[in-house]
């Protein structure tokens, strides 16, 4: 298995800034191959994919959503979706770790103070800083837009003591972006974000992470205490609701959906390759009519997620380009419902695809643990998709919002309508 030291400098994968990832597919594929090489080991040993992440750091991809002016790749959500998909086809744990990092980066880049951006984003782009998301908290059950632990303001610094039961990659992160209650007198819904580098934080590991799948994400509990300068608080106009609605949730859903799609797509490609390989297929089930139908349904699931994701990302990028973060479109029920639906659809269909693939491949080709045909691992990994973050909550929200979105149209219809109006 390759380690970063083994790869000669000329073999290292790098990405060009300001160029769509769709035009850098070879680099993406090379990176995915590195992830794939260690995916079985990461799963088996329940360890953080440090080797893979080091390669992602070295490639510049940690800075996908860092603007070019701060040394990043200046990517869009379409780039985010593609990057997540290709990485997901190599190792879903690594893809999800990278996805959540990108989500934090997007929040900092768009909503952080100028000073925070100038200090932090170049480091992120250089691969030196992996940011973990700290939003979970005891007693609030995963609800994003509320917080319990308050910030204490002390001169031009803030002090925090934050206990989070689930922090993806928490023990490996270089920095943390945490949701906090504004201060001790504030309501639960009055949330701000604060960034803290690991070296100024006192971290205590909480519950261990031992799960059915995505074992490499090492999302165990973490308690973080420390003090940082006040400019590291992210509290823009419009508050956290605007940060969450326009940036944090869409970025998260796009990147997760891409990652899950990649894992399912990767599993399908491996099975089809085995069915086409003249030697390997003697051990696989024959593709009779029932077999063909099963494969067709796997393709339906994957094609559906791919289309939905690509359409969402493209519509979002367009909305942002045309109207910016304050676009009324990004506050509409139509947008919120579509954002929720993306996550629900991708989580359900990606898992369903691999479940059906496993059914097709049977005991020998799917249920058995096999490094060469990791359908079984993809199944265990993707079962997490509907749970992290709970689909149930999203569905209830979407259903209620839908009552007040009688037109039930794609959110870009709203954008087009606004663009048609005379200025």
């Amino acid at each position, binding site marked *: 298995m390759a380690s970063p030291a083994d790869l000669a400098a000329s073999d290292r994968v790098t990405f060009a800034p300001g160029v769509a990832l769709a035009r850098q597919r070879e680099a993406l594929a090379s990176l995915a191959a590195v992830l794939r090489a260690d995916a079985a080991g990461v799963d088996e040993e329940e360890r953080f994919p440090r080797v893979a992440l080091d390669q992602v750091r070295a490639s510049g991809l940690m800075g996908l959503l860092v603007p070019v002016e701060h040394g990043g790749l200046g990517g869009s959500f379409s780039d985010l979706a593609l990057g997540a998909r290709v990485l997901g086809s190599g190792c879903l744990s690594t893809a999800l770790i990278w996805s959540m990092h990108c989500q934090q980066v997007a929040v900092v880049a768009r909503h952080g103070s100028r000073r925070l951006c100038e200090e932090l984003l170049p480091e992120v782009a250089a691969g030196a800083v992996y940011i973990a998301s700290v939003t979970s908290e005891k007693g609030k059950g995963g609800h994003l837009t509320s917080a319990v632990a308050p910030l204490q303001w002390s001169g031009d610094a803030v002090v925090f003591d934050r206990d989070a039961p689930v922090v993806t990659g928490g023990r490996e992160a270089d920095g943390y972006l945490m949701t906090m209650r504004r201060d001790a007198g504030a309501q639960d819904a009055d949330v701000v974000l604060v960034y803290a580098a690991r070296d100024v934080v006192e971290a205590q590991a909480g519950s261990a992470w031992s799960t059915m799948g995505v074992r490499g994400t090492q999302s165990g509990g973490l308690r973080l205490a420390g003090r940082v300068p006040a400019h590291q608080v992210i509290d823009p106009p419009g508050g956290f609701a605007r940060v969450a609605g326009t940036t944090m949730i869409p970025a998260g859903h796009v990147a997760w959906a891409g990652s899950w799609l990649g894992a399912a797509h990767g599993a399908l490609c491996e099975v089809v390759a085995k069915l086409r390989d*003249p030697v390997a297929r003697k051990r696989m089930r024959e*593709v009779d009519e029932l077999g063909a139908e099963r494969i067709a349904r796997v393709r339906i699931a994957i094609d559906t997620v791919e289309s939905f994701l690509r359409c969402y990302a493209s519509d979002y990028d367009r909305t942002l380009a045309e109207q910016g973060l304050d676009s009324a479109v990004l506050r509409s029920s139509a947008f919120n419902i579509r954002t929720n639906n993306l996550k629900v659809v991708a989580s359900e269909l990606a898992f369903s695809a691999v479940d059906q693939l496993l059914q097709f491949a049977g005991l020998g080709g799917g249920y058995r643990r096999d490094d060469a045909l990791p359908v079984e691992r993809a199944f265990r990994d993707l079962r997490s998709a509907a749970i992290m973050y709970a689909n149930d909550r999203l569905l209830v929200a979407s259903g209620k919002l839908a009552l007040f979105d009688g037109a039930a149209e794609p959110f870009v219809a709203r954008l087009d309508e606004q663009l048609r109006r005379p200025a």
Partner: protein
Amino acid sequence: MSVHDTRQVFVEVLCDFLPEVSSGDELQMDASLRGLGLNSLRAVDLLIALEDRFGVMFPDEALTDETFATADALLAMLVTLQEAMAHG
């Protein structure tokens, strides 16, 4: 396998997928395979049967009208694959 044997086995396999042709003797090598009843689903099964029989692998791009224009065209591709395998 000699070129003659390849051709003979090829014709045997092919005829299994041509409902209009009952034996190899009847097969016209330059006739349209579609005209002889080869549709796209049978074409997939035919390629897989040829792969199993000859131990070659047709690339995804082989599934085109040109490949299946005539028996001669398909046989030519099969022979090319065999040669590539022998030298590979």
